[in-house]
């Protein structure tokens, strides 16, 4: 920590009493480590907390590898302690849940990245929290187009992710995606958007009509993860599909397409993997934001129990801060410079 930073933190403690309490230890707050503190004696002062692990698990980044050493002045998050924190395990939980996902969805799901992607990790952890005895199996099948049409309906897997729920209360009520599937609560909200070559002008387009003459590339099997709201955009534009996000961005780099339409974290991930960050820019005007969920075939006899397990575990993680912690850690790992800086500081 640099000297100005120490000053900054000291000043902070004086200024923000309203927002952050520096002395009281209560749940759901930030706390600044004082002289003589240990995780154990902090836990003792917070009603509802039982083990130092509850604090450590949501503050690994701030504390580092050794929970016995906490540095003076470190800000840590005291987990929220609500009814969901001490969740009752779902008694009707299945003995095992098999979940189907796909590679090529980094940073959300891909066997090649840490923890197989943070969406994968969120789903696994949710089951662990709400049904500790339940075995979780995650299977990667890369033909995502076959997931909802073939593999899930045949009962080969209990559930699949990540999927966007269609508008089952409205326009899409009669679609197969609504009649044949039940959906968990939203695990993560994503932003779909458009990438183009820097300087081509498409980054300044503020209305879908601006893409009327463009050729748009979309990775296969992505339709269910959104961009449907921009269907009007595509009605006049030429749309081509490529096998992967990387293939689309290679087409873009070679000038074979004008736009790549893709979820923006996945797009950014692919652009960096290909080293195209100076060539490719994101349109910052047109977005579609929507949540992704776990889909369970409605005819699975345990569909409701599976959804209950997932939802209960998800809610507990959201309330304890574990949800934030899992995603932040994953985002940190995917930003190498950021990770280096962190390790230098700690």
């Amino acid at each position, binding site marked *: 920590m640099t000297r*100005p930073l120490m000053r*900054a933190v000291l000043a*902070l403690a004086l200024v*923000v009493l309203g*927002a952050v309490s520096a002395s009281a230890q209560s749940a759901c707050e930030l706390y600044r480590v004082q002289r003589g503190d240990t995780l154990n004696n902090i836990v003792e002062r917070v009603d509802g907390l039982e083990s130092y692990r509850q604090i450590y698990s949501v503050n690994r980044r701030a504390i580092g590898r050794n929970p016995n050493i906490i540095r003076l002045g470190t*800000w840590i998050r005291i987990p929220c302690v609500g009814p969901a924190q001490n969740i009752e395990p779902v008694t009707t939980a299945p003995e095992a849940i098999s979940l189907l996902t796909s590679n090529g969805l980094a940073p959300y799901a891909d066997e090649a990245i840490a923890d197989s992607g943070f969406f994968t990790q969120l789903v696994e952890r949710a089951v662990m929290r709400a049904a500790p005895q339940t075995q979780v199996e995650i299977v990667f099948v890369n033909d995502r187009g076959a997931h909802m049409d073939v593999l899930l309906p045949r009962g080969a897997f209990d559930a699949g992710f990540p999927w966007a729920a269609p508008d089952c209360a409205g326009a899409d009520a009669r679609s197969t995606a609504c009649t044949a599937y039940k959906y968990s609560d939203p695990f993560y909200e994503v932003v779909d958007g458009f990438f183009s070559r820097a300087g081509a002008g498409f980054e300044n387009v503020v209305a879908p009509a601006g893409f009327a003459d463009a050729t748009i590339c979309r990775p296969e099997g992505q339709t269910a993860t959104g961009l449907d709201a921009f269907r009007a955009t595509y009605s006049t534009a030429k749309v081509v599909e490529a096998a992967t996000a990387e293939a689309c961005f290679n087409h873009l780099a070679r000038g074979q397409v004008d736009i790549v339409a893709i979820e923006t974290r996945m797009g950014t991930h692919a652009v960096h993997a290909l080293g195209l960050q100076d060539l490719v820019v994101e349109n910052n005007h047109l977005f579609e934001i929507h949540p992704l969920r776990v889909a369970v075939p409605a005819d699975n006899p345990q569909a409701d129990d599976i959804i209950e397990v997932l939802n209960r575990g998800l809610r507990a993680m959201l309330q304890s801060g574990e949800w934030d912690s899992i995603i932040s850690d994953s985002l940190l790992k995917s930003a190498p410079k950021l990770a280096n800086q962190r390790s230098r500081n700690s």
Partner: protein
Amino acid sequence: MRRCDTPTATASSLTGLLASAALAAVATLGTTFAPTAASAQEACTSYSVRAGDTLASIAEAAYGTFDYQTIFNANRNAISNPNAIEIGTVLALPCADGSLPGAASPQELIAQQEAEQANRPGAASVFEPPIKIVSANGWAPFVGEKFKGGGMLVRLASTALNRGGNAREYNVSFVDDWSSHLETLLPLGAFDVSIAWYLPDCTKYDLLSAGMQKRCDELEGSLPIYESVVGFFTTPDNAYADARQYTDYAGARVCRPAGWFTFDLEEQGLSEPLVTMVVPDGVNDCMEMLTAGEVDVVPLEIESVSAAATELGIEGQIVQNPYLTNLLNLHFVTHKTNPRGRVYLALLNRGLTEMRETGEWYAIISDALAEANNLTN
């Protein structure tokens, strides 16, 4: 020695954006000033640029101040580089209340937008918690709790979160220690969005100081929300008053308040040991040190300098260099590890885009600047 010409590439592309926005604003307001360009440099008229004019000289003639940021804001369709305005360019010289000549007042336009788009406060849930926004006091006229809605940039954010189909809950807090925003509050997730920060051109990563590289490493920014003109101020008799290029400041004592951006100076080669950096607490300190002869040059936003000079009553004792300006893009920022950071920037961006289309962006800026001027006068 590094040397970058202004405006930067980022600045030019932004100019294109804002130009179309300003154009749209004009169209919305039904302004008819363009064909009837007058030759007088008077507020609330349009004016055709003649040989020898600078934006500062036009502002001086029309408004009696060197602060031409208002003219710049209102004419983004016509001005790309404030140091080089083209002869014959027709400029709308805003009226005293900030409205454009022959158009609705900013207040009318804001009221009209508010009425058309009644707030739709969304119900926060564990899945969609309120967006936690943080800003700080002491940065007139941009932000501050004493201003309506927390000041211009906070109003732009809160309005953006009610436009473009947005309906999420949000709250705004003020934590006056700016450094803590980046060092502590955003990385820990205590707040989601900080208002507001200058972001450097991260494609020039290797030219940047460690502090600015850190911003590239750690932060994600919204669309530019405001483009500030930075002027170089001296006392009239100072040896550096006649600088024609950045290198002429070699040996000068340069004042920048603590915790403020420095990348624009770094990109121009204005860092130690070429110059001596003096880093007091605030803008007023820099201005007082300038008039006391303790520093030579204060390179800061012309609006901040104007406000400080008025407050301190030293308007007649300082001059702005007519040859040198920098353009700086302000952004709402999130930390790269914020799980919902991308969603929040997308919400802000689509709101901002709509506000530029409707003219509400310029209306809020001029309304807020008028308020700040009234408070200081």
